[in-house]
């Protein structure tokens, strides 16, 4: 939705939009990112709002998070305010330069926006990136909702610049994809007028061990400086009565669940301490808060980071206070924190607070609705070709290692096309590992275009040098599709919407020295299958690469819709259909099966006419209407 921006105006915003707005209001001139749910919408909102308001910025979808960080770090060293945006798993890729940037210090405010996914709803693991701040000895902040996120971004950029340390801005899916009213503020136009200067300071910036040894003590001085600043609002906020026997310390979106729980129980006399920063920890206000209580509950999301610090503070100050939280089993150490869990914890601690009882409801299990590859997805053609080729050439299912992206949906029934999905680029590295372990199965690594550019090239070099007998299938659909179609090096477009040079994976593969490279159209099952069979036999003495190239169908449809071109769906010739359900087992959402007449049908409003089902139908029962397959 287009935002109406007229000075101070209240608009409904997601956390991601609010963070983008906050970055621009604080004068952040350089923003870089690698897409990853739940963070993906920030950079596009940053670009959109900057264009709407004529703010001169540089935004980039970088090839991976580490490169993104290095670009923004350099911008910061030049005195500009900079941000780098990623999901929690992405921050694990930047720890090397991040930890060094803490030692060298920075110039302009530098914020790492890190989207955690506690549930997880869209991640392979759930990690608490506040830990990175402890590891690298930098600042870690967290907001509780979109409106607060926007203000906290601004405070964080200022704090980072003031003390000369990068900051991790940790927020969660609930805030990223939650919407609240947000009050718009003014843009700090000074931030955009800054001119870049690079000061040569080899004692700092050539961070070899002797220099690092000299600079590390300074890092701790900066942290102490930050600690003094954050001992007051907005970093720490006390609510409720000045004292009581039982209180709650909370941070992030659980703050609102604590309020909800107390309100459901009808309690309004419990002191609450809300922390918007976990590193450095505002120790004095915490000690103050604890000193007046007999019992305290710590409600934070994922790891008990604040909780363990509270134990330490209580211990070192000889406080006789009972501390409850994750380490005492009152709250789960994983997953999203909900009002229900907090109600339960409060009830466990204080039996007298039980004013709210969940209604009993015994529905039984509602079957899961399993997501599929989209109708017309080119990955479906690639997977079917790979499965058929393995069966024909090797008489076995082989082992197919997946990677991170849309093509993960291919693991779901009925396709069940991949056996693993671990981390960015892991498919190829693990394929080498399986082959070198002496496994006799055929091994195929499947990786998307964006993932290949991000983390697939080093393991492919490794596979070549060590003659790993594996097939690498690059599913190249020209976009980073899973996260909402961000451009990548293969797209030919950049984050600002301008044309960009295009990188072709086959040229990289060729450059490595790999001999077998085939580029095929995954909509052509016979051609694709043949290429995989050839690759399997060519891969006896080193990797063979098949590139399945076809643009993401959703992007193609978007373009056709703009041009007013209507697609012509295929249809099932019911006289020919034998009810074998081979088409249904492709998992295409445009197909349905009628168990009464034992025939498949095509759902016309969903079919894009890719013809994959028609090509694999043993009875040739799926026919095009007027149009030939593959024409559009």
């Amino acid at each position, binding site marked *: *939705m287009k935002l109406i921006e007229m000075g101070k105006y*209240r*608009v*409904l915003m997601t956390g991601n939009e609010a963070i983008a707005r906050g970055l621009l209001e604080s004068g952040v001139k350089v923003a870089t990112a690698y897409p990853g*749910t*739940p963070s993906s919408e920030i950079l596009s909102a940053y670009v959109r709002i900057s264009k709407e308001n004529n703010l001169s910025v540089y935004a980039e979808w970088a090839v991976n998070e580490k490169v993104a960080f290095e670009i923004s770090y350099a911008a910061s060293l030049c005195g500009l305010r900079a941000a780098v945006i990623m999901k929690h798993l992405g921050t694990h890729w930047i720890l090397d330069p991040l930890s060094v940037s803490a030692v060298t210090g920075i110039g302009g405010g530098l914020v790492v926006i890190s989207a955690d996914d506690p549930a997880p*709803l*869209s991640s392979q693991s759930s990690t608490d990136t506040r830990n990175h701040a402890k590891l690298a000895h930098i600042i870690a902040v967290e907001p509780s*909702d979109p409106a607060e996120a926007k203000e906290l971004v601004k405070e964080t950029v200022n704090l980072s610049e003031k003390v000369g340390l990068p900051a991790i801005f940790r927020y969660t*899916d*609930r805030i990223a*994809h*939650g*919407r*609240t*009213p947000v009050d718009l503020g003014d843009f700090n136009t000074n931030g955009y007028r800054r001119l870049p200067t690079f000061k040569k300071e080899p004692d700092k910036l050539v961070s070899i061990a002797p220099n690092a040894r000299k600079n590390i003590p300074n890092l701790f001085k900066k942290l102490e400086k930050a600690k003094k600043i954050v001992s007051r609002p907005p970093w720490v906020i006390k609510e409720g009565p000045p004292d009581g026997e039982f209180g709650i310390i909370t941070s992030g*979106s659980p703050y*609102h*669940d604590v*309020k*909800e729980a107390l*309100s*459901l129980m009808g309690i309004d006399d419990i002191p609450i301490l809300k922390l918007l920063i976990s590193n450095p920890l505002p120790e004095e206000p915490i000690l103050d808060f604890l000193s007046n209580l007999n019992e305290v509950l710590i409600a934070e999301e994922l790891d008990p980071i604040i909780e363990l610090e509270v134990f330490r503070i209580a211990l070192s100050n000889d406080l006789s206070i009972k501390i409850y939280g994750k380490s005492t089993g009152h709250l789960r150490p994983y997953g999203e924190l*909900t*009002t*229900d869990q907090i*109600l339960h914890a409060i009830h466990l601690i204080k039996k007298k607070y039980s004013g709210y009882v*969940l*209604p009993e*409801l015994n*529905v039984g299990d*509602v*079957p*899961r*609705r*399993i*997501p*599929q*590859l*989209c109708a017309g997805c080119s990955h479906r053609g690639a997977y079917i070709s790979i499965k058929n080729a393995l069966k024909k050439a090797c008489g076995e299912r082989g082992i197919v290692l997946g990677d991170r992206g849309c093509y993960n*949906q291919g693991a*779901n*029934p*009925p396709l069940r096309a991949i056996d693993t999905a671990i981390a960015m680029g892991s498919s190829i590295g693990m394929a080498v590992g399986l082959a070198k372990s002496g496994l006799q199965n055929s091994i195929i690594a499947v990786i998307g275009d964006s993932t290949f550019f991000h983390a697939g090239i080093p393991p492919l070099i490794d596979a070549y040098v060590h003659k790993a007998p594996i097939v690498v299938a690059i599913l190249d659909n020209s976009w980073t599709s*899973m*996260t909402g179609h961000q451009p990548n090096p293969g797209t030919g477009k950049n984050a600002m919407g301008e044309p960009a040079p295009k990188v072709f994976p086959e040229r990289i593969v060729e450059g490595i020295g790999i001999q077998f490279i085939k580029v095929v159209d995954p909509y052509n099952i016979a051609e694709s299958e043949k290429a995989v069979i050839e690759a399997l036999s060519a891969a006896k003495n080193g990797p063979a690469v098949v590139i399945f190239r076809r643009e993401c169908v*959703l992007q193609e449809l978007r373009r056709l819709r703009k041009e007013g071109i209507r697609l012509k769906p295929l249809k099932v010739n019911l006289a020919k259909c034998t009810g074998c*359900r081979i088409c*249904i*087992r492709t*998992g*295409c*959402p445009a*197909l*349905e*099966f009628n168990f009464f007449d034992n025939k498949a049908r095509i759902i016309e*409003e969903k079919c894009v006419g890719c013809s994959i089902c028609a090509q694999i139908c043993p009875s040739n029962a799926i026919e095009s209407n007027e149009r030939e397959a593959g024409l559009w």
Partner: protein
Amino acid sequence: MVNGVVSIILSGIGGQGLRIASQILGEASIRAGFDVKIRESHGLAQREGSVVSHVRIGKEVHSFLIPEGTAQALVSLELLEGARNIKYLKPNGLAVLNDKLLYPVSYYTRETAYPDKKWILSVFKQHRAKLALINAEALAKRAGDLRASNVVMLGFLAASNVLPFSPKFVVEAIKAIFSYSADVNIKAFELGFEAARSVDYET
């Protein structure tokens, strides 16, 4: 209202326009001077997965998530998805269901079950829900666009006195959000609104 907050759970499958529906309620709330919090599912549009939105409206809203058993209304664009989220609905709450069963692919391959409609409705009856089944797609088609089923459902909701503000704020929000196709969507809203007046609730 639980502590002055109205909670509405919206459910369906990817691509049914759930996100826009919750956005409309959010925009309407702001226009009516209320605080609002919305939590949406992301990443499964077009991919046939379950989606759900939590919408909470009040003078001051705390949690993004509706505590189980407290929603005043459940609005579902698909029957099974309604049953999936019934735990959020308070007993005797309003359930507005689009009378539509969308079978997942895995049902056709017999890899997952899909309960029959009778079972789904029995779940709501067991919960003593004030249940209304409407054919939102027929009404959306009559308004001029099948895709406006989501707005038909909002029309029904707005007529059932759950929202703490006048339906005119919803219409204003629709106008702001659908700048090009506002007419079709306002018509869809009106048809849903009218449907609520003539519906027989199944309890």
